[in-house]
């Protein structure tokens, strides 16, 4: 079965987080009959900050001073979406890529990303049990905290080992959303992390994006079929984006209580 490759859409951080939710609901046919494994890369206009699912504004000091903030479906720390390559994969949880433990699926996805990065001269490796120079207490940022499965490489400047790829999953009733960010060039909002290039380079960034999508498509086992988002996915995202960015809701953890 072909892998759906979604082109865009570009939008605010609230819309993008809401669209990921729509994508998770759509895959395996919950909302849109027949929607199979999907890969998308996307941009943020303007740049924005996504909080991890259970984070509160108080957990991320910089978030309190930003307007473009929204809750992400996946957990972990906050991400400032700027000068990065952002991707999402949505698939059935019984897809071979996601079958078994969560750690195994990370290894498979991150190995594919490491291969793509190697082609642009970055030797990314799993952090394993090493300490990172990018780990910074108190910021609440994803790239300032790390786990053994994160991809790391020497950062620019001092060459110290730092996190350059972060990703996280949401698992919901037999479906998986895997969200990830590859830091392309330095962002003052996320100091000290590893980046692919020292400065923005749109042409090479587009090539990397294409290589990543191809690699993820191969990982999902199908030829890529470029598609526009289904109208119902866009509609669902537009309906729910306000919740993702609701300032009052961002002050507390989502709860079933």
């Amino acid at each position, binding site marked *: 079965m072909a892998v759906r490759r979604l082109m865009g859409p570009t939008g605010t951080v609230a819309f993008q987080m809401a669209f990921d939710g729509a994508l998770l609901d759509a895959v395996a046919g919950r909302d849109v009959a027949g929607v199979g494994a999907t890969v998308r890369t996307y941009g943020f206009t303007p740049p924005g900050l996504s909080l991890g*699912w*259970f984070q509160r504004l108080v957990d991320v000091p910089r978030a309190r001073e930003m307007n473009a903030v929204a809750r992400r*479906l*996946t*957990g*972990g720390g906050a991400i400032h979406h700027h000068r990065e390559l952002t991707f999402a994969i949505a698939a059935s949880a*019984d897809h071979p890529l996601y*079958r*078994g*433990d*969560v*750690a*195994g699926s*990370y290894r498979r996805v991150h190995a594919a990303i490491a291969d793509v990065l190697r082609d642009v001269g970055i030797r990314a490796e799993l952090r394993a049990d090493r300490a990172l120079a990018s780990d910074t207490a108190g910021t609440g940022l994803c790239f300032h905290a790390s*786990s053994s*499965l994160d991809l790391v490489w020497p950062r620019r400047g001092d060459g110290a080992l730092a996190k350059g790829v972060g*990703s*996280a*999953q*949401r*698992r*919901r*009733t*037999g479906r998986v959303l895997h969200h990830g960010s590859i830091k392309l060039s330095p962002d003052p909002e996320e100091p000290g992390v590893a980046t692919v290039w020292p400065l923005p380079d749109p042409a090479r960034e587009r090539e990397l994006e294409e290589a990543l999508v191809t690699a993820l498509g191969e990982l999902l086992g199908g030829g890529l079929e470029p598609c526009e988002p289904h109208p119902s996915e866009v509609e669902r995202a537009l309906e729910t984006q306000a919740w993702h960015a609701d300032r009052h809701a961002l002050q507390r*953890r*989502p*709860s*079933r*209580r």
Partner: protein
Amino acid sequence: MRPDDRKYTRSHEWIKADGDTVLIGITDFAVNELCSGNEGDLVYCDLPEAGRLVEAGETFGEIESVKAVADLNAPVSGTVVEANPAIEDHLEILSRDPWNEGWMIRLAPKTKSLDGELMSAAQYEAWLAESH
């Protein structure tokens, strides 16, 4: 062999009769899927408060590990009687003893029957072997 005094779901919850109520938790497979044997990888669990109504198949809570947030689904419909107060501060219980200490919620079920799409321990294990 997993405990045969309860039923299992395809989303890896278990449900066990306990007097007029039922206890619900997640299986060792679910815990291991989330944290691969590293109990410290479980970081947060949100469970409902007493009195909440849940429908079979509906999400009653969420659990976060270092790398994934997973929904917890109700095997049957009913009213939440209580959530296990020990879970939130001691997530390691889920790794140590998912079957007893690690129960998550107590539910007053809408109906007495625990059949439907639930599996016995043997059926759950056969299904795991076939599909994972």
